[in-house]
């Protein structure tokens, strides 16, 4: 990576004095701890036995370790399996659909010779500035399109992201020289031909960057599920987590206030704390493991996103 190389080169010019270097290393390390400790807590609780949570609450040093949280989760985890399936399905399908629509549109608005490319850019760009907001969209989806509580709610309303499309256009404009288009046109290639055999291959980084961003945002979306989904087969992972948390919290508070035997009995039937944390880990781990491998795309996306095309 160029970045690392240049940084090294700068360091060769003058190294930071050893004392200051140590100070910085320590400060940066303290912040690393601040970032990691909360996540470690979740991991530890997911591996604690129910007894030790009941006695000491959440702790970094449980009196007893156990895999029960994960065991229960997988044994009684039909809902988890459904949620995994539906989340993976719509994240992947949605990203592929989005990329198809967005890259094509980006190609169109990247054309400098096309008469309406400015008009099409504005049609897209205006939606970033002004929108109907939550309620009209909700009424549209539920009352007129009837796509609530179906898989389409995850695919259609999020098909095109104006910001990503503009980034894609910037990628096309900055990575593919105009002369290449001209040459292809002179050779008699049509736009579709140029798009498929010239633009797409040259443009893999851009597609990977935007694809990863949109994959992550779909994976992390809990709001759509909370607003539109009742069918348990269609509840996404993140919504499942939120629901689990809210139900437990609600029952806990009410049972605690009432203090009735019924309330206590109800509390017993709730998923155990360690199982809930195990569920959280199952939601988080895929991304945390995958992202360091894709980090360079994210960094690239960040920097291109800040360039105006």
């Amino acid at each position, binding site marked *: 990576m160029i970045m690392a190389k240049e940084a090294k080169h700068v360091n060769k010019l003058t190294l*930071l004095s050893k004392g200051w*270097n140590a100070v910085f290393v320590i400060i940066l390390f303290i912040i690393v701890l601040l970032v990691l400790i909360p996540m470690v807590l979740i991991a530890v609780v997911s591996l604690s036995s129910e007894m030790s949570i009941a006695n000491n*609450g*959440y702790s970094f040093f449980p009196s007893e370790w156990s895999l029960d949280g994960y065991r229960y989760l997988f044994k009684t985890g039909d809902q988890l399996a459904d949620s995994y399936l539906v989340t993976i399905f719509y994240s992947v399908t949605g990203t592929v659909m989005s990329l198809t629509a967005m890259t094509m549109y980006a190609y169109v608005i990247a054309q400098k010779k096309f008469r309406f490319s400015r008009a099409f850019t504005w049609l897209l760009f205006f939606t970033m500035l002004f929108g109907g907001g939550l*309620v009209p*969209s909700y*009424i549209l989806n539920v009352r007129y399109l009837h796509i609530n509580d179906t898989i389409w709610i995850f695919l259609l309303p999020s098909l095109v992201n104006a910001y990503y499309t503009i980034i894609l256009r910037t990628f096309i404009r900055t990575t593919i020289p105009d002369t290449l288009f001209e040459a292809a046109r002179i050779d008699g290639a049509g736009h579709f031909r140029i798009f498929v055999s010239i633009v797409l291959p040259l443009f893999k980084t851009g597609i990977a960057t935007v694809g990863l961003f949109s994959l992550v945002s779909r994976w992390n979306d*809990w709001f759509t599920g909370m607003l539109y989904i009742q069918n348990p087969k269609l509840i996404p992972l993140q919504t499942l987590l939120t629901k689990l948390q809210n139900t437990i919290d609600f029952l806990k508070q009410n049972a605690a206030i009432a203090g009735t035997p019924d309330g206590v009995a109800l509390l017993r039937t709730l998923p155990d704390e360690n199982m809930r944390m195990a569920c959280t880990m199952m939601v988080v781990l895929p991304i945390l493991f995958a992202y360091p491998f894709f980090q360079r795309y994210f960094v690239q996306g960040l920097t291109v996103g800040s360039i105006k095309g």
Partner: protein
Amino acid sequence: MVMLQTGANVRWKRRKKIFRKEDAALYLMALPTVIFLLIFCYLPMGGLVMAFQDLNITKGIFSSPFVGLKNFEFLFSTTDAWVITRNTVCYNLVFIVVNLVISISLALMLSSLRSGRYAKTVQTVYMMPYFLSYAVVAIVVNAFLDRDDGLVNAILKLTGEVGKTNWYHQIEVWPPLLVFVNAWKGVGYQTVLYLAVISGISIDYYEAAVLDGASKFQQARYITIPHLRYIVGISLILSMSSIFRGDFGLFYNVPMNQGKIYPVTDVIDTYIYRALTYLNNVGMSTAAGLYQSVVGFVLVLIVNKIVNRIDPDSAMF
């Protein structure tokens, strides 16, 4: 007669130009997105008329009676409108400043470390929380603040504090806590962005500075920071255009939608959501949405005008 003919001729030619045959593929490629934009972006804008209606869900938009500004009167007659506006704007302003100061400091430190590998590892860790959803972050926060099992209460118990505090009812802890959570999640992303800018600064500046005997701190002070000033200024101004939008996940999930702390956690977006789902007051929540959209739009226009004056290249349009 002659003139008429040429006029028609020119018009005909121009029409021919508008629909050039070789552009057909372009229209086809734009079609899916155009249909999407019309249905899911422009159609809901028309739905904003609901803000002026007494909406009856069964009757629908087309036959519900118009009530003028009644929904807005209802919204602004309580203190709600003031509270949610204040919260949205103030939190966003604090978020912008806090995240900026932290991420610039971190980027400066990271870029001057002796070990590049350490810097890279640290950077990877910092960006992690950015990939967690607020559904997950809420659970992480709850692990600390839970009344019965939370770590904070457990530690307080060790220090001899008796009784359990329900942190979700304590108004005074939430403003700093929300600022912290927002920074925890967002600072890494910004740090990486600023690092990328720093690594793009030409090495010539530093070489010249070294020849002149500048220390590492002088280099940061006189080369790196001035180079950052520019992008920081622009992104500061640009972020002003979204100070009317609250981060729904942060303000709804993390405080667990607890009524007692609404005075310090409620923002425009959570208010709209609750007015829609709990109160079923479609008219008023649309009115609040319209208020947000219009003020947001005006802010964007003003900000863009300012940016255009300072630096036309960074303007949005």
